[in-house]
């Protein structure tokens, strides 16, 4: 142990004299980790936004077999029947707390062209059963008028959406009368209006989905099963019932899987380059220290401390590179808000999230590159005959 620490310390102290070659490893690995962490932070941010949407105490009813709210349509005759299903909570007046909502895509002009924005028609119960939704500016839309409220992320992402501004779509002018926040979830990228107004404007009398709050007398999981069973047992319905949170989690899956796949693919290619950079640098380092290493071995130091010292140098450089890469990703991307297409082909605004877990993942890649890049040069350092190495051959 004493030997290993002494040789490793000596090796690390000699690093400044080899800073140019060492820089190759640091920069190469910083790039790998930077790209990895930045891309995964995008996926993590998107996943966080969608998984943070919804509540375990609510269910979403969609037409059977569809995977997204936008492609779902519930016949208007079925809506009142579905509201009366067991497991749904009722208000003081005995009315079910369920909101039959219409979700449609509308085109809005942004600086660089038209973008798709989700417009949600919400019934009064839709506001009641979503306590996370808070009106932070202006007022709520009025029924029967072309008025809407906009999510906070939508105002940041799309130009010209403020209280008092007017938006043109479906051949008429819509007044923005309020701004709402909902804990940064996917709804904040939407525009909301009165459900009946939306149905009339878009000529769709039914609903995309019914959002219902569970009866509080039973645990949410039990209430969900009750509701599912009741709907499945009624031959009039072709409806799927999902927990709201499960639905939004599943919505993030496809996009995050794609981002993760591309990230790993790019990172593996870059990591190959970084490994060769590290190998080259560490072979140079071993060559530069050949006589020092041989002298230590002549004095009686065994191969293990020498090997550990070379690996420690490689790993130290890799971790420095990894920290720089992760640090740059954090500085440049953490909290950066952008938008991507959700599965509904609407813009979903989200923030990049450079989490400690992502940094740890980036550093583990750096560690792996450092270990591989240092292993073979370390092996060379201890395999070369001492007498030959002392001659500098």
């Amino acid at each position, binding site marked *: 142990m*004493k*030997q290993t620490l*002494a040789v490793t310390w*000596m090796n690390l*102290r*000699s690093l400044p*004299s080899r800073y140019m070659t060492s820089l190759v490893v640091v920069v190469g690995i910083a790039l790998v980790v930077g790209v990895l962490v930045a891309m995964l932070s995008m996926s993590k941010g998107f996943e966080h936004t969608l998984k943070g949407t919804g509540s375990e105490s609510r269910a979403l009813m969609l037409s059977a077999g569809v995977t997204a709210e936008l492609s779902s349509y519930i016949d208007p005759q079925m809506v009142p029947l579905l509201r009366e299903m067991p497991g749904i909570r009722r208000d003081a007046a005995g009315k079910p707390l369920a909101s039959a909502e219409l979700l449609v895509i509308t085109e809005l002009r942004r600086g660089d062209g038209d973008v798709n924005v989700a417009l949600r028609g919400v019934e009064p119960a839709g506001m009641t059963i979503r306590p996370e939704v808070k009106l932070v500016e202006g007022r709520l839309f009025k029924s029967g008028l072309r008025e809407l409220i906009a999510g906070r992320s939508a105002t940041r992402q799309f130009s010209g959406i403020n209280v008092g501004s007017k938006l043109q779509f479906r051949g008429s002018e819509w007044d923005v009368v309020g701004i709402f926040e909902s804990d940064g979830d996917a709804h904040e990228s939407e525009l909301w209006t009165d459900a009946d107004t939306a149905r009339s404007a878009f000529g769709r009398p039914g609903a995309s989905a019914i959002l219902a709050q569970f009866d509080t007398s039973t645990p949410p999981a039990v209430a969900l099963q009750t509701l599912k069973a009741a709907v499945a047992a009624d031959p009039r319905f072709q409806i799927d019932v999902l927990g709201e949170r499960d639905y939004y989690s599943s919505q993030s899956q496809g996009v995050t899987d794609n981002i993760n796949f591309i990230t790993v693919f790019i990172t593996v290619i870059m990591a190959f380059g970084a490994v060769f950079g590290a190998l080259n640098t560490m072979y140079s380092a071993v060559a530069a220290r050949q*006589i*020092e290493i041989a*002298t*230590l*071995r*002549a*004095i*009686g*130091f*065994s*191969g293990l401390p020498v090997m550990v010292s070379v690996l420690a140098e490689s790993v130290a450089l890799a971790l420095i590179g990894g920290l720089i890469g992760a640090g740059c990703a954090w500085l440049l991307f953490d909290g950066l808000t952008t938008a991507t297409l959700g599965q509904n082909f609407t813009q979903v605004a989200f923030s990049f999230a450079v989490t400690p877990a992502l940094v740890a993942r980036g550093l583990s890649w750096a560690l792996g590159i450092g270990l591989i890049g240092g292993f073979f040069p370390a092996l060379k350092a201890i395999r070369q*005959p*001492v*007498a030959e190495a*002392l001659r500098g051959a």
Partner: protein
Amino acid sequence: MSAIVSLHNVVKTYTRGKQTVEVLHNLSIEIAQGDFVALMGPSGSGKTTLLNLIGGLDRPSKGEVNVAGERIDQLSSGQLAKWRARHVGFVFQFYNLMPMLSAERNVELPLLLTNLSSARRKQNVQAALAVVGLAERAKHKPAELSGGQAQRVAIARALVADPTLLVCDEPTGDLDRTTADEILHLLQMLNKDHGKTIVMVTHDPKAAEFASHQLHLDKGQLVEGSVHA
């Protein structure tokens, strides 16, 4: 005196490409404990190869090498490293000090392979530096020392663990005449006053005169000398 180094019918061959070169041919020598031997000969005569075999840095292709009572040609690499740490102190032509370490840290290196406490190591380092006359330069790094001072530090490093044998490869090859003579006087003092057995390779006949005996090698064979089997 008993032989501390004994080589019997030693052959050493190297393979360079497709060629096999025999550097030492059936060489047999003995060196007595407390002797100071100079190995001389022209370039390529095999003197450094012989020194490497005696110092346990290399193994013979054939034959026996007994040093300090152990048959070292049969030891594994790990065993040989431990054996060198216990029995051999090396002095190289270009000093081979660690540039990032101070003189005292360089001298301490062989002691890191022992079980001595930090305080005891410090004590031994100071004693070794005092023997070579460099106690006041203990904190200096190799770049801050002259060639002669650097070689003295290297000698202190070779001495500090009290090895059985000092193996010196052209210890004055990089020094001017005056400094070289100071180093050779130091080696002579270590041999005479401290009883250290020294084997030294040198090209320099004047350096060889400081030794008690001279061995001359040519084409891998002993051609003359007062110490041989």
